[in-house]
Each structure stands twice: as structure tokens, then as C-alpha cells.
């Protein structure tokens, strides 16, 4: 028992065995693909289908109701295998190239590999035919590129894969056909004109109506051809831009991948004097995840670009469609890359999902003076002028400049350093441990508190946004001198005059009942007075109005 399907071929309904239907469908698709480039493709296909319907109907004359595989096979034998169509068409190509018939169909060249005249894969021979240049030049160029730059072999392999072999006679003729170029398009248009003129002259002695009909037909034919060539030119132009763009994109991407992260700024984290890969690894939880990310990124970015490149080359050199296998494997590789990237990103993001803080308080109970002098070890703050986080790797330690100091008021008697260490981690415990591991470098000598801009933490903790916020708690009556070197570490210190951090430096600030007050800023007092007079003036103005 066989399953049958109902099919409408050229308006006639047939019952066909499923298998026979597939066979017929495949046959028609192959032919359709072949006629893709011909003018009047739909009409040709309609005619062929109509004839097939007629032939099948004849088969059913002796009482049979269902079309079988045998029927389909015999119809295909009558109509001819696709290869036979192609061979016939090849002859047409030849005749239109050599013969001078008015109605010859202009058929252009395609890029194939020439397996008959090859050194390796026949790529150079094919290119030679395509561009109408002796193949020896392409061979020489590839040889130089091979020894000179090493790119030659890769490029050759790519071409070998994407350019099909000229197998049938028709493909070989297509390979050797006339190239499409501006001159050729011009010639064809000129030929059209000449034959048009000739026709007009020949028809001189015939009645006017027919001549006009002929002229109009010729004119429209000519017009369509010009439009078609113009359109083809536009398409090729776009394809060329596509190819050039894709090549530039590939080179840029590969360059960034090789020495890139070193120059890249990832989320404002700039890197200094370190190998990018060493650094980038700190974000991930294992070298494998880092590798996943790189490979995934490469696949996800490069495959679409290569696809564009391939598409552009196909249009540009009229490379016939290759099998679906290539696009299917490219698509699956892309999905694989996406999965790798997703795994890497989710596992990395998970590393930052929890945050913990650890508090420590240092009491300076034997502080010799009433004024604390805050300084920083690093006086060169220019390296960090954009406020970015900087990371250094020093042997087993990572040094980060995520440290900030605030000045607050305390009710106690002694100056206190309240240190809050924070870190992220994949869970609360890990985040807590990471936070505990962070330490700051500082030193107290006489009345000087010297703090390093950089916090340190072990390399095996990796970078999990470890940071320290320290508050210097001043009792009322004590003051702090902000040394200019502390510029990078102080952050948003509140004071009674609302003075901004940058202007607080180089001055002494006294903790009063209201908050910090500057003791040596004449300009501040002046400014305050000016503001007051301004306000009064404004008020006066309002009154007069």
C-alpha cells in the first residue's frame, strides 16, 4: 500500500504516489534552478509543466488512476535529465557568442575552477578565464602572496572551497564566456543599435505600419536591455561595497582579537602595562570560560561577516549556488558560538550576583595633634584623570584604585578610621571572603596619615569589584588638612560651605557643630559675602518692581 498525494499540475489534478511526487518535484526544482538566470523563466517552466501534465495524462489512459514512480521516470526520460538541458543551453551560449544572430541571448561569464588545467585546484585558471588575463599572472600573485605574506594559502583555500568546479560542457563554456564589463555592456548596446538600424533600413520598402511596429518593438527591447544592464551594474556595485566592507571588518576584528583587550576599555576599566589576556581573564571564573567567550565571540561575529563576503563574491563573480550543506553548517556553527558565548556570559555574570561588606574600625587613640594631615603615596594623579578604575597585576596581587575617603563627624573622643570593604561574589560566602581579603596600604607617622590610592587583593580572588570606602571620623574641635596628593582618594566630603572636593585641597578644615568649616580660605569668606550682597540686590530689585 502506498500513500498518494493530490497535485495540481498545470491546472489538471493528479493522484500521485508520495515517492513519485517527491521525485517529480525534485526534478522540476532542479530545472527551475537552472533556468533562474534565463529571461522568461516562468513561461518556460509553465510550458514544461503543461507538457508533463499532458504526458502523465496519456499514461493514465488504460484505466489507471494513480501516477507511479515509473510513470514519472518515463516522463523525465522524454523531457530529458537536467544535465541534458544544460548541455543544450551551453550550445546556445556558444552560438550567441560566435554567431551574430539578432535574437541571441546575451549570456555572461561565470567563475569556475578549471580542473582540466590545474596546478592545485584550478583556481588561477578559472580566475584567468574570468578576467581574461593569462592565468600565469594569478599563479605568480598567489606564489608571492604565499611566500611573502602567508595569506596566499588561506585565500587560495577559501577560493578553492567556494568556487565550484566546471564539470559539464556548459559550465566550461560559461567559464570561458564573455566577461561582463563596462566595455562589453557598451558593445552589446551598440550591437542592439546597429541591428535596429539595419532592420529599419531593410524594411524601407514595406508599408509604414509594420515598420513602425518593428521599430517600437526594437526600441522597447533596447530600453529594457539598458535598464537590465544598469540594474546589474548597481547590484554589482553594492556587492563590491559588501566585499570590501566585509574584508575590512574581518581585518579589524582579527586585529582587536589578537592584541585587542589591551587597548580596549571594558566598562570603564582601563588597563595599564598589562597583557590584555591576563587582565581579561580576571573577569571570568576560569580560563576555560575566558576561552569560551573569545571563541564564541569570534564565531558569532565572523560568521555573518564571512556570509556577507561570500554573498558579495557570489554576486560579483556569478558563482553558482553551492550546496545547502555549507550554509547549514555555518548556521549551526553560529548557534554553537552563541551558546558558548551565552554560557561564558551567564557564568561570569553569576560571579557578580552577590555583594557583601565587611566593616573595620581603627581608633587613633594616641594621636599627638589636633590636626590630621591626609596624604597619598602617589602624587601623580594624572594617569587617572577620567575617574576610571585602574587595575595592576603585581605577582600574586591585584591592585585597584577603587578606594575613596570621606570625612564625617563622630560623637566619640578619638579620631577613628571606619573602613568598609565591599566585594561581589557568586554567593554570599564567597563575596564575604573576597571582601575580607581586600586591604589598604597606609601609614601613620606623627600627625600624618598616608594612604595609597590602591587597594590590594589576592590574584586568585580575581576581580570582583573589590573596593574600600573609608570614612575619617573627626570629633568636634579636631581638624583635617587635605594635602593636594590626596586629590584622587577623597570623595564628596560634606562641608558647611558646600565646597567641591577639588577646592578643599590644600586647606585645613575644622569639625564644628554644623560640620566641616574651612579655617584658612579667605576666598571662601569673600565669595560668601558677595553672594549675600547679590541676594540683597535682587531683593531690592524685586521690591522696586
Amino acid at each position, binding site marked *: 500500500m502506498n500513500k498518494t498525494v493530490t497535485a495540481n499540475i498545470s491546472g489538471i489534478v493528479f493522484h500521485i504516489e508520495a515517492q513519485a511526487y517527491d521525485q517529480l518535484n525534485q526534478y522540476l526544482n532542479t530545472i527551475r534552478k537552472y533556468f533562474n538566470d534565463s529571461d522568461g523563466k516562468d513561461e518556460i517552466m509553465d510550458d514544461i509543466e503543461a507538457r508533463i501534465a499532458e504526458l502523465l495524462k496519456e499514461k493514465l489512459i488504460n484505466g489507471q488512476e494513480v501516477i507511479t514512480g515509473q510513470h514519472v521516470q518515463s516522463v523525465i526520460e522524454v523531457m530529458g535529465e537536467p544535465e541534458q538541458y544544460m548541455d*543544450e543551453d551551453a550550445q546556445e551560449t556558444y552560438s550567441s557568442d560566435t554567431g551574430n544572430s539578432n535574437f541571441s541571448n546575451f549570456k555572461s561569464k561565470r567563475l569556475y575552477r578549471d580542473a582540466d588545467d590545474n596546478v592545485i585546484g584550478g583556481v588561477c585558471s578559472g580566475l584567468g578565464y574570468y578576467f581574461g588575463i593569462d592565468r600565469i599572472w594569478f599563479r605568480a600573485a598567489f606564489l608571492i602572496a604565499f611566500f611573502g605574506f602567508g595569506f596566499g594559502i588561506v585565500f587560495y583555500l577559501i577560493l578553492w572551497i567556494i568556487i565550484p568546479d566546471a564539470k559539464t560542457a556548459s559550465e566550461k563554456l560559461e567559464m570561458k564566456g564573455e566577461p561582463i564589463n563596462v566595455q562589453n555592456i557598451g558593445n552589446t548596446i551598440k550591437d542592439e543599435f546597429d541591428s535596429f538600424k539595419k532592420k529599419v533600413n*531593410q524594411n524601407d520598402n514595406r508599408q509604414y505600419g509594420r515598420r513602425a511596429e518593428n521599430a517600437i518593438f526594437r526600441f522597447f527591447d533596447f530600453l529594457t536591455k539598458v535598464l537590465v544592464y544598469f540594474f546589474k551594474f548597481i547590484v554589482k556595485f553594492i556587492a563590491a561595497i559588501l566585499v570590501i566592507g566585509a574584508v575590512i571588518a574581518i581585518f579589524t576584528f582579527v586585529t582587536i582579537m589578537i592584541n585587542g583587550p589591551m587597548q580596549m576599555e571594558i566598562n570603564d576599566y582601563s588597563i595599564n602595562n598589562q597583557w590584555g589576556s591576563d587582565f581579561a581573564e580576571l573577569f571570568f571564573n576560569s580560563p576555560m570560560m575566558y576561552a569560551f567567550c573569545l571563541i564564541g565571540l569570534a564565531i558569532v561575529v565572523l560568521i555573518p561577516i564571512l556570509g556577507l563576503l561570500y554573498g558579495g563574491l557570489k554576486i560579483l563573480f556569478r558563482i553558482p549556488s553551492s550546496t545547502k550543506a555549507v550554509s547549514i553548517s555555518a548556521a549551526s556553527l553560529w548557534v554553537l558560538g552563541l551558546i558558548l558565548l551565552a554560557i561564558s556570559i551567564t557564568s561570569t555574570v553569576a560571579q557578580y550576583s552577590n555583594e557583601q561588606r565587611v566593616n573595620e574600625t581603627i581608633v587613633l587613640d594616641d594621636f599627638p595633634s589636633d590636626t590630621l594631615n591626609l596624604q597619598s603615596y602617589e602624587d601623580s594623579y594624572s594617569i587617572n584623570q577620567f575617574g576610571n578604575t585602574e587595575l595592576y597585576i603585581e605577582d600574586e596581587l591585584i591592585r585597584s584604585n577603587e578606594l575613596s575617603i570621606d570625612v564625617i563627624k563622630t560623637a566619640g573622643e578619638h579620631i577613628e578610621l571606619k573602613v568598609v570593604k565591599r566585594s561581589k561574589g557568586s554567593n554570599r560566602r564567597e563575596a564575604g571572603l573576597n571582601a575580607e581579603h581586600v586591604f589598604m596600604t597606609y601609614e601613620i607617622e606623627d600627625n600624618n596619615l598616608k594612604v595609597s590610592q590602591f587597594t590590594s587583593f589576592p590574584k586568585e580572588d580575581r576581580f570582583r569589584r573589590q573596593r574600600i570606602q573609608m570614612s575619617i571620623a573627626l570629633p568636634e574641635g579636631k581638624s583635617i588638612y587635605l594635602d593636594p596628593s590626596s586629590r584622587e582618594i577623597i570623595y564628596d566630603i560634606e562641608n558647611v560651605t558646600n565646597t567641591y572636593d577639588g577646592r578643599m585641597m590644600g586647606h585645613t578644615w575644622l569639625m564644628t557643630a554644623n560640620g566641616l568649616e574651612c579655617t584658612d580660605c579667605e576666598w571662601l569668606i569673600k565669595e560668601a559675602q558677595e553672594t549675600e550682597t547679590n541676594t540683597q540686590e535682587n531683593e531690592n530689585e524685586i521690591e522696586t518692581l
Partner: protein
Amino acid sequence: MKIENTKAQMRKGVLEFCILSILESSEAYPSEIIEKLKEGKLIVVEGTLYPLLTRLKNAGLLKYRWEESKSGPPRKYYALTEVGVEFLKELETTWDELVNAVKLTRKKNIKK
């Protein structure tokens, strides 16, 4: 130079001429044209004919009309246009010249 290619080219050259000749006396539908071409061993498979007919029609040499058929879909009956008749005349002249040329050259060779 492969003999198959040369043969096919020669056959191809006269194929259009033959199609136009078949249609000179009366209109015909593709199956009838195929029958005659098969007799002359000019084509082996039918599929070849359809693109050719379409091309000749698009070039203004042929026209067609539809006719209902008992044994299947409606048929296209092809006939020569006036341009086609002119074209065929020219081809006939050329053909006679060619036959003459071939005769002459072959006789010479035989004499040698």
C-alpha cells in the same frame, strides 16, 4: 577540441532554422514540432525545445495562440510572425550558400 562539442554546435546552429521551417507551412504545438525534430535526430529530449520556443517568441519571431485539448492542459499553437518569415528567408539564403560552400570544399578534398 571535443567532437561532441563541435557536433552539438553544428546541430544547434540549424535547430532554430529547422523550427522556423517546420512552422513555415502551418502552425503547430510543441509536441508536433518535437516529433519532426526527433525524426531528424536533431534533439533527443523534449525539455530542450521549450526554452528555445520562448526565446524565439521573445525575439518576436514567433507568436502563439491557446487551444483547448482533450488530453490535457490547453496547448500553445506556435506560428511565424511576419518578422519570423523575413528571418527565415534570410536563413534559407544563408543555408543554401553554406550547403554550396560545403559541397565545393568537400569535392576539392576528394579530388586530391
